[in-house]
């Protein structure tokens, strides 16, 4: 048998701590408990105008519990993982349950519903922790240099930074579930600034990130792209108020997909904070729209081998060709709604709640460029600003930046406008979906076009 890796040893020690805590809780006569314990390492370095700005390095750990006694729930967390510390912590947490009111629906899943094994999703890169500050700084410097080199119009830099993190965590429940998982993530970010003729600053931002170090784009490419984005927005101005077709590039598009994600979660539905609350089985989007939640993507940024309650996870089609098929549910929200849990819980060790894993709009066949075809006058959105969305009504209105579309071409940069339309109508107005889906973020989307939105400008 192979010797345990460093990672496996860390997980074994976390599991010991979790089991110790469960035992300590059991002595207080609780009905149920879940314990989450994790340990993380992080490095963050940044440079600006070639000089080192920050080197930050740390290791952190923490433990959190949710417990039920007489059907009453309490949650608590601590960073003191010593045995004496944990015993005192558990005693205080048990007392807190007295404040809550009995809520039998809050009980964890039946032990029969918990998984004993799960797939290996390749979420941990052993190389990540070994990237030291010197290497990170070199990458950041390279990226920033590339930004300045890409255009003479780059006048300043917000800086470039590299960060990495790794985490190991264990979830143990009184129902007998013991899950161990680990993951890594690293990213490189550059923000370059160009000046307009009038002296107005135009920032350009670009980043690369991934669970594996080898997935990162080259630093010089990241810096160059940030610079090109800043330069492309020089001279940007409002456009005239009107109702026009709008194309979202894949980054702006995921902002829209994220809003839908928030409206299909069990908590939002039972709290009456979703305009989709009574819409399962009905048309909520155009036939071009298929939305998927897939926790099982290898190396996926939002992947998870089991859910936050120890249930099996699986790929779910939430909306198929415009028809809403299911919500994403943890145990509690499923019980409140009289539905079956979908294994979508996160927040184990606290109050579990449904969350998306890798949630995306399925790619279509169009090329991104073809989305602009036939648009006499429209808006190409690359970035949205502000928080103008009401999940209860679906009303949507946010600031937008991008480019004016005239006769099927991007003609000049636009900023300082808002785009508005109720999300329900917006989704039903999606008339073309492009093929440029990438899983760089846990919520992802290809570019798409909406037949009409209100643009408010001059």
């Amino acid at each position, binding site marked *: 048998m192979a010797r345990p890796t460093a990672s496996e040893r860390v997980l074994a020690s976390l599991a010991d701590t979790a089991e110790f805590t469960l035992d300590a809780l059991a002595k207080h006569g609780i009905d149920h408990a879940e314990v989450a314990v994790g340990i993380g390492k992080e490095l963050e370095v940044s440079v600006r105008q070639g000089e080192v700005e*920050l080197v*930050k390095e740390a290791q952190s750990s923490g433990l959190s519990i949710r417990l039920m006694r007489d059907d009453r729930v309490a949650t608590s967390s601590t960073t003191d993982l010593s045995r004496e510390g944990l015993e005192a912590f558990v005693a205080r947490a048990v007392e807190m349950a007295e404040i809550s009111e009995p809520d039998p629906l809050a009980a964890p899943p039946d032990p029969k519903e918990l998984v004993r094994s799960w797939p290996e999703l390749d979420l941990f890169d052993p190389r990540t922790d070994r990237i030291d500050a010197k290497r990170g700084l070199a990458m950041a410097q390279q990226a920033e240099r590339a930004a300045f080199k890409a255009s003479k119009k780059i006048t300043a830099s917000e800086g470039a930074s590299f960060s990495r993190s790794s985490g190991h965590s264990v979830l143990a429940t009184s129902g007998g579930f013991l899950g161990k998982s680990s993951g890594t993530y690293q990213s490189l970010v550059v923000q370059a600034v160009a000046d307009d003729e009038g002296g107005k600053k*135009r920032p350009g931002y670009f980043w690369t990130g991934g669970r594996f170090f080898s997935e990162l784009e080259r630093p010089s490419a990241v810096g160059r792209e940030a610079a090109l984005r800043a330069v492309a927005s020089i001279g940007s101005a409002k456009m005239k108020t009107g109702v026009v077709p709008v194309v979202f590039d894949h980054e702006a598009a995921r902002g829209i997909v994220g809003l839908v994600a928030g409206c299909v979660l069990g908590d939002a539905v039972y709290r009456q904070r979703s305009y989709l609350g009574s819409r399962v089985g009905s048309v909520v989007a155009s036939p071009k729209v298929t939305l998927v939640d897939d926790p099982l993507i290898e190396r996926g940024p939002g992947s998870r081998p089991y859910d936050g309650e120890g249930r099996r996870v699986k790929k779910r089609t939430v909306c198929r060709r415009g028809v809403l098929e299911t919500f994403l549910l943890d145990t509690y929200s499923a019980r409140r709604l009289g539905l079956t849990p979908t294994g979508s819980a996160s927040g184990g060790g606290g109050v579990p709640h449904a969350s998306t894993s890798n949630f995306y709009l399925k790619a279509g066949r169009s090329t991104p460029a073809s989305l602009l075809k036939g648009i006499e006058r429209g808006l190409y959105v690359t970035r949205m600003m502000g928080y103008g969305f009401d999940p209860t009504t679906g009303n949507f209105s946010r600031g937008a930046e991008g480019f004016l579309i005239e006769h099927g071409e991007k003609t000049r940069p636009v900023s300082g406008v*808002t785009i508005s339309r109720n999300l329900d109508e917006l989704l039903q107005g999606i008339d073309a979906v492009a093929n440029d889906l990438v899983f760089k973020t846990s919520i992802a989307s290809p570019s798409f076009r909406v037949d009409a939105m209100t643009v408010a400008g001059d």
Partner: protein
Amino acid sequence: MSGPLAVDHALSARILSEALARGGDFAELYFEYRRAASIAMEDGKVRTAGGGIDMGVGVRVVVGASVGYAYAESVEPEDMMRAAQTAAQIAASSATVGPVKIRRRRLGDVYPVASELVDIDGASRVALLRRADAAARKFDRRIKRVDASLVAVHKEIMVVTSDGYSAYDVQPMMRVSISVVAKNKRRTETGSSGGGGRQGIAYFDEVSPEWHGEEAARVAIVNLDSRPAAAGAMPVVLAPGDSGILLHEAVGHGLEADFNRKRTSNYTDRIGKRVASSLVTVEDDPGLPGSRGSINIDDEGVVPKPHRLIVNGVLRSYMHDKISAKFFGKRPSGSGRRESFRDVPMPRMTNTLMSAGTEDPQDIIRSVKRGIYAKKFSGGQVNISNGDFVFSLTEGYLIEDGKITAPLKGANLIGNGPDALETVSMVGHDFALSDGMWTCGKDGQSVPVGVGQPTIKVDMLTVGGTDT
């Protein structure tokens, strides 16, 4: 005691010496002990009671504008020493720094709290939420659901600096939030209300739980009759209090000195220049009694003072932390803040306020032929490098022929900070501080802030609505 005072000056001095073992301009230790208690009530039922303790120390070593940072989640000497050694890596000389002699700085207290909410028994805290819940439901039969929460935090910090000072502060915080759903035959709408600050149970003597319940209900009922907002550019009257968030976002961030040191703010090189209408005077005041943004000491150990940022339209000063102050040859303004011991401090706002003018608020509304009256906001975002901002309205009205008329469906205000301030044409005499509910985010760090302003009229802002 388990707080930062458990670490004595001699031990702090040893850790600081270790942090500066490879040189550096200065170093500081930021001890934090944080105890939180929260209650979440869902639809009239306490779903969960939570709480937790967090404790640790952050060690920072500064060389020029370069920062080495590390933290330990305990105050065990060996853990703190290790953090000091990690932070020290930023410096690379063989300089040795002798032991530091530390004196305690005496501080004033603008938020003395006799009875902190975090220490009040659970049943009493639940009772407060019940009162809000009942008031909201009683307000109108169309109120169908009430969610309420109460979060209380007791935080102790101690900052020890290598120039030989320590400062200790207790920073209490509480916040109540009520959120309701109203329904009629056709529509479902929501409303919310919240408040708090660096206060204790006494807060509720000033602002009752019932008030918050009724206020949340009132907004939801108003929104049942709202209609789509107009789209396009028009005059906007900002109501007193909460609208200060617009000032915070659109102007405040651009005046944080780190952005100006980096030359990425639109206010770079503008000190002494006119940046707003002459009616506009803005200050950042850390000393408002009990306010959410107030601090007795900043997170770098500097005693903060109120500082005027814009006076009669002319840019007077930036907000400085130690690094930017040194760069600009100024004294730090006590604006160095951080979310926790895990984070580096940077220039941040405390309570950002626009001073009162002389106009009668009614006259301001009467002066608008067709425009918007903006009363409540859910939040905003700014592009710091050029001041472009977006704010989402949760309560707003149409102004027609000088009168407030129909309520509007959530719309956005979009504009540019400097441009908007240039077109401020009327300022009311009715200054009001927003009840404490705002949290400011910057570089991933959240800190509580306060905002306040009188009624003001901005001649032209773009309103994002659907009605063209």
